[in-house]
């Protein structure tokens, strides 16, 4: 091994690294293409972490991140690398979130570094997610080093994949580094490429402090930990700093870098990436993309590109057991401490009781939050149908956002409704293309582009987000047997013929089941919902009409017939005790029902009705 594995000093002295010896980079890759393994290798090979402390996916801290192979929060690691030119370089890797839901966070992470490694699985080729992220890197003016991974596998085809990178992404892949992150082949070459091919950062040490807030997270012992990239100036422990967008002012308690565990440092200068703590209590008080400067001698302008978090998908979260409402409230509040992009407000549903209407950056974000609530806080949840944010243009000329179909105002006040649209990029093997086109067409998609890269088609659709939040991922996965990759970005709002569909059980509207749908899709959706509910609601002593309606007009109807017979045939002197136990059990089962007018609907019926697996 060519690398000198010296142990690192426990404390890094406050000697700032020369700008020319700093390289900041991110790794762009599709899930499973080897981003985390490569990061682990870089850390290992430079001796940043002792062999005995290595564990897989050092940078993914959360269980969910490790399990799903996704990164939700940005992580950074500082690596010291003695290069072939005899100089030691400081390499800062920012591990960015890889999912479109976190597109804004990704864009800020990208702004914080000067270059990217584009990792592509040499057996698979470019995937949709790679594209979305590599475009972010290109937008951030990165120098990009293509890296072909998994070359040790027999199915690897470096030539074809390099060609594909050039065709699809349009960057030169002739000098791609060929590696196997798993076996370690090519890792020293990656380190050299980082030093020789990526640019050093710029920055003025003597200018007023200007640093970007890259990300932040809550630590039970330290409070909020803020990850920053210094652009100009120098920040030191004890400095009084302020955040330009939020206006918050703090004194820095602790300043350091991640290796990947925290290590204190006396100061951070231009081009450096590290963290600080400052007795900040809420992650909400730190906004990704904000500019950090000195309170006394601030910089003149804030960094460009700051955007406040904007939830795009909303749904209701209710505890299955209504007694767990307080526990849910506590859990949501705790999660929100560490996730400024997640919004919530209390919601009351006649069907589901007390719960929360929550806003998310996207479906993955929704799933992650729900998973964490169920797993880390052990609360069983009912999740209502995800809804997007509609723009209601009122007759009086004003515009309102609609987060919950239940809040839809009387139509007489509404002039027209706009819905969010996305640009969806789907990469799919040829043989499934027909099914994918049909799916997109069924979901009111407008084809924007269709190109081929080898035997894979890349199809771009303009789709309504509300059709995608429904079960688009699942359908796509199922029609392509899992071979399609999918990514999207929001492209704005467009007017369409949208209506609120209500579901009435025994003539009572069930708020939890109302949804916004396109008028043309309403009948089919309504019929499916009524049929499903008919299966899911147990018979009652009377017959129950189940209807889907738009305004006052019924568009679909089913009738659940009355219970015919439910009586114990034999009940004599010896049976009464046993019979009573049985009835008590049944009564306990009733507690899991929600009373709806005269009808009792089991919790499970809501969960299953909202699943809608076509």
């Amino acid at each position, binding site marked *: 091994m060519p690398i000198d594995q010296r142990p690192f000093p426990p404390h890094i002295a406050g000697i700032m690294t020369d700008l020319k010896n700093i390289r900041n980079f991110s790794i762009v890759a599709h899930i499973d293409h080897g981003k985390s393994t490569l990061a682990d290798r870089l850390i290992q090979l430079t001796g940043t972490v002792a062999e005995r402390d290595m564990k897989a996916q050092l940078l993914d801290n959360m269980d969910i991140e490790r399990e799903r192979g996704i990164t939700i929060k940005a992580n950074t690691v500082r690596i010291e690398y003695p290069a072939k030119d005899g100089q030691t370089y400081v390499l800062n890797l920012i591990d960015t979130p890889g999912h479109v839901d976190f597109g804004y966070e990704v864009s800020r992470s990208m702004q914080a570094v000067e270059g990217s490694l584009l990792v592509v699985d040499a057996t698979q080729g470019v995937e949709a997610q790679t594209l979305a992220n590599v475009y972010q890197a290109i937008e951030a003016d990165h120098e990009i080093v293509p890296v072909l991974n998994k070359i040790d596998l027999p199915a690897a085809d470096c030539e074809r994949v390099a060609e594909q990178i050039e065709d699809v992404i349009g960057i030169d892949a002739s000098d791609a580094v060929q590696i196997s992150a798993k076996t370690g082949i090519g890792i020293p070459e990656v380190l050299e490429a980082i030093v020789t091919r990526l640019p050093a950062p710029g920055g003025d040490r003597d200018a007023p402090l200007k640093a970007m807030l890259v990300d932040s997270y809550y630590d039970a012992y330290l409070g909020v930990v803020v990850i920053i990239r210094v652009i100009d100036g120098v920040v030191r422990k004890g400095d009084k700093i302020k955040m330009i967008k939020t206006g918050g002012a703090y004194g820095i308690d602790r300043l350091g870098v991640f290796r990947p565990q925290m290590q204190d440092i006396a100061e951070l200068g231009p081009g450096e990436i590290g963290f600080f703590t400052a007795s900040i209590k809420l992650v909400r008080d730190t906004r990704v993309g904000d500019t950090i400067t000195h309170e006394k001698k601030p910089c003149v302008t804030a960094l460009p590109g700051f955007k406040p978090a904007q939830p795009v998908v909303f749904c209701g979260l209710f505890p299955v057991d209504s007694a767990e409402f307080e526990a849910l409230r506590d859990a949501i509040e705790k999660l929100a401490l560490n996730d400024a992009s997640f919004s919530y407000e209390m919601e009351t549903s006649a069907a589901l009781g007390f719960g929360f209407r929550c806003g998310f950056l996207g479906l993955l974000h929704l799933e992650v939050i729900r998973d964490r609530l169920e797993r880390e806080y052990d609360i069983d949840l009912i999740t209502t149908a995800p809804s997007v944010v509609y723009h209601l243009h009122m007759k009086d000329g004003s515009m309102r956002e609609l987060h919950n179909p239940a809040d839809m105002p009387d139509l007489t006040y509404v002039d027209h409704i706009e819905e969010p649209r996305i640009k969806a990029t789907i990469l799919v093997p040829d043989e499934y293309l027909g099914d994918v086109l049909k799916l997109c067409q069924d979901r009111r998609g407008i084809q924007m582009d269709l190109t081929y890269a080898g035997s894979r088609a890349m199809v771009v659709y303009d789709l309504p987000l509300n059709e995608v939040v429904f079960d688009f991922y699942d359908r796509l996965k199922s029609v392509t047997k899992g071979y399609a990759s999918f990514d999207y970005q929001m492209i704005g709002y467009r007017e369409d013929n949208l209506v609120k569909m209500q579901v009435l059980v025994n003539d009572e509207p069930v708020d939890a089941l109302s949804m916004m749908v396109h008028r043309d899709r309403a009948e089919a959706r309504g019929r499916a919902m009524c049929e499903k509910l008919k299966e899911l609601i147990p018979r009652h002593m009377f017959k129950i009409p189940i209807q889907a309606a738009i305004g006052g007009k019924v568009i679909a109807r089913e009738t659940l017939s009355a219970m*015919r*017979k*439910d009586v*114990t*045939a034999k009940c004599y002197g*010896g049976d009464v005790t046993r019979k009573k136990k049985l009835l008590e059990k049944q009564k306990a089962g009733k507690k899991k029902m929600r009373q709806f007018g005269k009808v009792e609907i089991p919790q499970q019926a809501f969960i299953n009705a909202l699943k809608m697996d076509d």
Partner: protein
Amino acid sequence: MAKCPYCDFNSHVAASIDQDRWQRAYLSEIDRIGAETRGRVLNTVFFGGGTPSLMQPELVAAIMDRIRATWPTANDLEVTLEANPTSVEAARFIGYRNAGVNRLSMGVQALNDDDLRRLGRLHSVAEARAAFDIARNTFDRVSFDLIYARQDQTYDAWRAELTEALSMAVDHLSLYQLTIEQGTAFGDRYARGKLRGLPDEDDAGDLYFLTQDLCEKAGMEAYEVSNHAQNGSESRHNMIYWRYGDYAGIGPGAHGRVTIDGQRYATDTGLSPANWLEQVEKTGSGEQSRSAISGADQAAEYLMMGLRLRDGISLARYESLAGKPLNTNNINRLADIEMVSHQGDSLRCTPNGRAVLNAVLRDLLPD
């Protein structure tokens, strides 16, 4: 002998039985309970559960003698014995009558040989009919049981079978829908998906209402969910259960509800005949548990049992047991959908309500 695959009653099968030992144990139990309930008038006796017709008539006579010596009995004391309709047992009928039995309840179960085999019965239709004729000539009152909603039983087949049953000179019929109970051979088969051809809820409902209809037309209206009788021929013994009166349970697996010093108790005895016998001999009591029943539980039991009857319950009695009235809103809701009818003090199920009594009870029983 064998155990029937649908039966979840406490039935036991033994090759031979030491009738003397059993007699001593029964008499000792009568003495014990008699001492606790001295002076109460006894109205009915029921020899049931399993196959009491395996008992020698002498044992029945000895038990009846001890009963008469223990309690003052009603003038019209009803003494029922359950019997299988086989020739062996029919030969004992005269002996039972001489011992004091005045009502016979026969487990005919089906008037169709194939179905009798499927139900695991050892008798044939011809044998059952012969036994029934003997019973008819021997006892004042004869009832028999049929099981319906059997595997692959059609609506028309049941109509024909029930019509035939009603044409036999019978004053009382117990007509049970086949119910798949956990812990029985049928229950196991059903759980494994091996019991096919059973009617769904709608078909079962049709069969139930057909039964009500045919019996009513034949002058045998249902006075309880599964029991039909000519006026005055109701099982007075079973009426005590459904009206939630006191009853003493004697023998293995027998439950009792007895009021002693103003407190009502639930009693039961061990299920295993051998253990029961040994316990009685060793400890002088076959009881396995005796627990005071709270007013609320008594009220619930009263409601569950009483609503099985055509005549329903007294709301005042419910209230005095429970210490509070039955929820009026719940009653009214059920009355609105015509599941119950409420007139003055009386609350009863409508015919439709009785068919879904479990649902009615779930609504009525307090949480």
